[in-house]
């Protein structure tokens, strides 16, 4: 099993620089997905830094951050630029996966399944020491929740963000009161997203002892065979089965 099997399945030609001789890597994310994630990180962090001081204007750190980023007007401009970047990213993501990606929609592995609900309970029992760790496929229930949570957040924040950025144009279609509602949705959803990313997502990909200081998948797009076996055993078995079939005849 020292042949570089998994790479044959991926669309990447090269392995990352930290490849050891004979080590097998599994393609986790395509370069396209990596770039989307990088743009997301950049715009998200800029939006949090320039947005939270306005959500909490009376805190001591609010004016500190606003001064650090170059004053209130600059804060607004950074927030708007990063916001537009995120809207473009969201539109690109949807267009790509609806029209460019040729896999049938129903066969995408990202849809929630009954197994995910079972895995959810099994995970809790596993934490309590009363069950085995559930065997995950390509995406675990946590990863699916991350994805759909971000999807929901993107829709909420992009729509309300555009309303807040162009309130008077929006008022041609909605009453003024709804601009206030957009403010509530925008800031509350932003707080939820920030807390979720900083606590839950970063635990999964940064702080958790398995990956600390971080899972390099977000840079290289690859997982090691060891990681693959333990984090996505079902997918690992499936790949191995396909490889065996391929090699037989």
């Amino acid at each position, binding site marked *: 099993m020292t042949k570089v099997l998994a790479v044959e399945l991926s669309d990447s030609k090269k392995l990352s620089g930290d490849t050891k001789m004979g080590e097998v890597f599994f393609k986790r994310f395509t370069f396209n997905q990596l770039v989307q994630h990088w743009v997301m990180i950049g715009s998200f962090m800029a939006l949090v830094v320039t947005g939270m001081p306005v959500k909490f204007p009376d805190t001591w750190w609010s004016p500190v951050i606003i001064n650090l980023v170059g004053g209130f007007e600059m804060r607004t401009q950074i927030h708007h630029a990063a916001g537009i970047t995120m809207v473009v990213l969201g539109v690109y993501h949807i267009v790509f996966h609806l029209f460019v990606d040729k896999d049938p929609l129903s066969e995408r592995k990202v849809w929630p399944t009954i197994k995910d609900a079972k895995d959810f309970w099994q995970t809790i029992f596993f934490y309590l020491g009363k069950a085995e760790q559930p065997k995950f496929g390509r995406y675990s229930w946590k990863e699916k929740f991350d994805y759909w949570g971000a999807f929901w957040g993107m829709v909420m924040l992009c729509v309300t963000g555009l309303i807040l950025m162009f309130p008077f144009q929006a008022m041609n279609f909605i009453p*003024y009161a709804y601009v206030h509602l957009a403010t509530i949705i925008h800031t509350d*959803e932003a707080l939820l997203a920030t807390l979720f990313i900083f606590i839950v997502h970063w635990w999964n990909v940064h702080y958790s002892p398995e990956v600390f200081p971080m899972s390099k998948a977000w840079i290289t797009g690859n997982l090691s065979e060891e990681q693959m076996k333990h984090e996505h055993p079902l997918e690992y078995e499936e790949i191995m089965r396909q490889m065996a079939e391929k090699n037989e005849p």
Partner: protein
Amino acid sequence: MSSTSSLRTKKKYVLITIIAFFLLISVVSAQQDVSCYHCHTTVVDEFRNNIHYEMGFSCADCHGGSEGSNSSVISSNVMSGNFIGKPTRSHITDICSKCHSKEAEDYKQSIHWDAIKKGHPEAATCTDCHGVHEIRAISDNKSSSNHQNSPATCAKCHSNTEIMSAWYYGIKTDRMDTYKESFHWKALSNGYSIVATCADCHENHITKSHTDPTSTTYIDNLPGTCGKENCHPDVKFDADIAAGLVHDKESLHTGELVFNKSGLTTQMKAYYLGPFDLAFWIAEFFKYLTAGVIGAFTGMVILDCLSRFKLKKRW
């Protein structure tokens, strides 16, 4: 021995006397330009920051009396002729209007002047916004009627429940609090001053009630007010601005179910979907969503941490 020492002491006294004399001269002459200083020190100190002082006006220009007299003459001379002394609140406008006729004319159309005419002298007059003796130019950052100081100046009375209820019950005292929820204030308080403050919407001198059809804040006039040249021009929006509260605040949305909305204002009605006040219920929804999601997942992270003490190796 002793004679030299007493001579030295004498010399010292003479020197001190000379220095004291010139000091006194310089101090007195420095105050000479305002004759009333010797008695009304505090007032004149304030007056020295007054734009009128810089332009060469004197006490007598507002208070009347003899201009020629000064400190060396007793006050009976000062108070001669057309001396007014402290003008009554309803009389202040007459004094300012001697020069500022346009402003006084505008002011006399305002609800503030209406109230004074009706016998409520505590209603705002010139000095409440511009200062009494320390009247600074509008462009001066320290002026109380300066653009960015306008919220604080108006709030002096309009956030004061005693003043607001003393002469007319029903004036809302939450106007400053509700303004603070707006983006205008959040920008202003962070030093971005090109945003609307009180006078930009309510007018500075022709301040009228929002129920007055000629008021800039009357529902039908709001599009024009918001769309002013320096604010949000070239923006087409109809009376939709009236379908919502300009002075909005979380506490105004109590979540009480309202089935008969005939008692609500047009602004308030816009927030309702059926009997539900959306501003309340959306905030409520996010409160529980955030607490639920973050609570559940943080619990999971904690469980994950704790489980590591039991299981030596995960994989």
